[in-house]
């Protein structure tokens, strides 16, 4: 069984949701990708802040 699929069978509640695969997990701590996301999230948050004032 694939490691990322193991939790599906651990509890009935877990079967109806989604689990990240290896690639999705790796991207969470991939410095280059996260640096890009950092810039995008910051821009979006600044827009939200400016819309709120």
């Amino acid at each position, binding site marked *: 069984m694939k490691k990322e699929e193991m*939790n599906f069978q651990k509890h009935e509640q877990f079967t109806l949701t989604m689990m990240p695969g290896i690639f999705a997990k790796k991207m969470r701590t991939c410095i280059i990708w996260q640096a890009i*996301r950092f810039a995008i999230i910051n821009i979006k*948050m600044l827009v939200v802040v400016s819309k*709120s*004032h």
Partner: protein
Amino acid sequence: MARLVVLGGGVAGHTTATFAAKWLGSSHEVVVVTPNSKWNWIPSNIWVGVGQMTKEEVTFDLAPVYKKAGITYHQAKAVSINPEGKADSDKPFVTIEYTDADRVGQVETIEYDYLVNATGPKLNFDATPGLGDGNGQMGENTVSVCTADHAVHASHELEKCIEAMKAGNRQKFLIGTGHGMCTCQGAAFEYIFNIEHELNKAGVRDMADMKWISNESFLGDFGMGGLHMKVGGYVVSSKLFAESLYAERDIEWLIGAHVSKVEKGKLAYELLDGSTGEEEFDFAMLIPPFAGVGLKAYDKAGEDITSKVFAPNGFMKVDANYNAGSYENWKASDWPRTYQNPDYKNMFAAGIAFAPPHIISKPMSSPNGTPINPTPPRTGMPSGIIGKAVAHSICDMITKGEDAKLHEASMAEMGAACVASAGKGVFSGTAAAMTVYPVVPDFEKYPSTGRDTEYTFGEIGLAGHWIKHILHFMFMYKAKLNPGWTLIPE
């Protein structure tokens, strides 16, 4: 010379007082009455609660900051408000009781021209038997991260559990809300993920059983009726997003739960379907329900007018629509815009201290009539924005006249950024970064989800963690009024 008195030196009150002092200069007086000697960046208490930050890193002394800003500071708690003055004077005043070591218990009155109530929440532990100690404080059965001291205590208890697991004893962790009418699920959400991260780091995750217990009718409600957000190109419900995060970390959930009683190592609950049950635990962090801090109000004749000024939950009435009726009739426009008290125009409430018109989530109760639904969150960003808008309004009333146009900051037109960290570490930490716009859904403007999905998004990763870290340092820097503090947004 006008005097503005701000009750509460937390996120909202500190924002109001510091901006008002800056804008008014020395020609008018700004007074802060708050029982705490230190300011606390509460969101970072989560990291104190897992031993990753110290109390000193998330707090600082208020006195030197207020001295620098020219603000008169009383370390005291407000007890009552006389908005009409007294028999022989029309001048409104507040009665305060000192809390600092030198003057503890001393009572004094302070007259005001303008008043802002930013007293935040009373942590109402005693609403659930066994959650409180019967004297208004946290009991000994659970821990909390709502104050920096609570968080220090929580981290010591966590350490004991980690030691027990290292010695081969399985431990059960129960995190969530301690009553059917709690808010602040986001804080508990963040704490459970931080604990999970720390247990992994300590190499004992396989010895821990972890469970979420909360009053939300579905996971991911967050007191905002849930949200639809952009994740990985999809627009998904926060239910799916949250369930995925829990399942990935092997954390079970028990939702729609009103915790009815807490004992040592055990709690009792009632669910939305009316059934009851018990959960055992070795470590439990349960957020208490919030109420107003219990200020009283009196008219000129000394008659009690508390129910005129405050809602039954103790929060101050402002320009909200408190007669919106049932859920089907609720509108974004029910939410206040100026935070001015309808009866006393020189009195405002900011942050958690204002009475919301109604909850945001769908009202629910068990067949036994027990209400089990989250109450509305008023997080840091809205509290700061409201505090600043109120400061602006009062400054204009002082400098331009009482009829000056008031500044507006409706939670139905305001976003909130929530970065829920899931572990600290420059390259190993991650956080769920979420923004929601607007906080209160507006189904007239956004008929499908109530919110703008361009700006309501969420993702988990290192970027969110970096943002959370930067926010910590930015807000501590800003609150200390260091150079350029006004440039940092709320």
